[in-house]
């Protein structure tokens, strides 16, 4: 099965079968639907014509420039993801790319990514960088291209139909790991400037405002041994805990994982380029090389999220490329 459904709301009375049917396009991203502060899944898409409904798509880890096993043409699979988005009956309001746009942050790799995304029907794309987009020049090229309208070193927030979106950057100035303990493992970090900005950014918001946070490295500790976590994410989440609905979208680990903690739902997305091993199942993170060509697209994906203005939960649909 190529689709994975998260947060499906039983009370909708939508049977799983019809749910899957509506997701027949089974693409490379994830559509998120916001429903009164909670992300809802495709099962609610038929109601998408209701007032106040919108959806958006998360794509991640396109790694343009990567050309080794198991995927020697990551531009092609990235384009396939965009084609899936364009084939959606209800077009998403915008796209969110959660980083590692490129493999080596070179201008030509950024150009290729931009070129592919130009073919997407939604013209608005919000980005946060991954460490691959900033490591060679501390984010200079990235900021030149994607920094317009952002704060500080590239973070931003925006509102869309009552939902407050926050794009955080946790891949800059990564500190040397010591190999032990939290923060000693080469984690992502947000930094004091960004945390201060975040605290101010949400201060005036009503606690009933639905919050969507997106960042590259997971904002919860998935696997410290591989640095899969963010050193100061707890501080960031402490500013958000008064809100009734917080959805956190991350990339980086090239696989779908989910965790619910109080009002916070954490999700990681698939890559459009290559899969990575489950935490601890390999000596090191990195591309899983021995994926058979005919299976590759089943481990790549995108995520669709739809939001409805009622009390249903916000659901998330992760779809494989094939």
């Amino acid at each position, binding site marked *: 099965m190529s689709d994975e459904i998260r947060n499906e709301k039983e009370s909708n009375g939508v049977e799983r079968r019809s749910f899957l049917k509506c997701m027949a396009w089974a693409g490379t991203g994830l559509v998120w639907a916001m429903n009164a502060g909670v992300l809802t899944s495709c099962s609610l898409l038929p109601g998408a014509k209701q007032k106040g409904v919108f959806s958006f798509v998360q794509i991640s880890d396109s790694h343009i420039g990567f050309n080794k096993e198991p995927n020697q043409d990551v531009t092609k699979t990235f384009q396939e993801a965009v084609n899936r988005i364009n084939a959606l009956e209800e077009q998403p309001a915008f796209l969110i790319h959660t980083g590692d746009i490129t493999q*080596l942050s070179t201008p030509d790799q950024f150009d290729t990514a931009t070129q592919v995304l130009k073919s997407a029907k939604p013209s608005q794309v919000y980005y946060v960088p991954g460490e691959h987009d900033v490591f060679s020049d501390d984010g200079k090229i990235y900021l030149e291209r994607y920094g317009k309208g952002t704060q500080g070193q590239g973070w931003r927030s925006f509102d869309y139909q009552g939902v407050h979106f926050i794009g955080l950057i946790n891949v800059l100035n990564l500190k040397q790991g010591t190999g032990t303990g939290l923060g000693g493992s080469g984690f992502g970090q947000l930094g004091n400037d960004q945390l201060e900005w975040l605290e101010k950014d949400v201060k005036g918001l009503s606690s009933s405002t639905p919050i969507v946070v997106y960042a590259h490295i997971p904002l919860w500790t998935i696997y410290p041994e591989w640095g899969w976590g963010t050193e100061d994410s707890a501080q960031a989440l402490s500013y958000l805990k008064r809100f009734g609905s917080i959805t956190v979208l991350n990339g980086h680990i090239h696989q779908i994982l989910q965790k619910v903690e109080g009002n916070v739902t954490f999700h990681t997305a698939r890559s459009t380029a290559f899969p990575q091993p489950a935490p601890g199942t390999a000596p090191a993170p990195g591309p899983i090389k021995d994926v058979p060509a005919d299976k590759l697209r089943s481990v790549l994906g995108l995520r669709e999220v739809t939001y409805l203005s009622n009390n249903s939960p916000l659901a998330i649909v992760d779809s494989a490329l094939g």
Partner: protein
Amino acid sequence: MINHLKRKLLLVTVTSLLSLFLAACGQSRTDSSSSSETSPPAPTVSRNSNTDMSKMEMPAKPSPAMGKNLPATSNPEQVVVENFSFQPGTLTVKVGTTVTWVNHDDEPHTVNETNKTFKSGTLDTDAKFSYKFTSPGTYSYFCSLHPRMTGQIIVK
């Protein structure tokens, strides 16, 4: 068409001349490095010297011609980057040794000294980076892309 061919031939000639020149460069560089002891001050002391690229023995991504023609130093030492780790993790060398890092992973890595004494830039698969240690001390370094990857060079 003929013009185009001519240009190609010319290019080939220039390229081969260039590699000859580079080969000569590599040779002379080794000669001078073995004889000259007028190296910059100890890297550990110059904490804010972010521009110590001049001390690099060769660029992060050497051209094949340069790589082949760069003669082995008198005391070659190598650190292999493999499976997201530096091997050996600790390497002890004598003052004046040039250490070369080579990336055998399919992932890019970097070699960044903690105090920014040296910085390799992007090392994609099979790329190399070399640095000559002219002062004694312990040099800790990490990969800026995967900061959990760390190593150290002890120079005696």
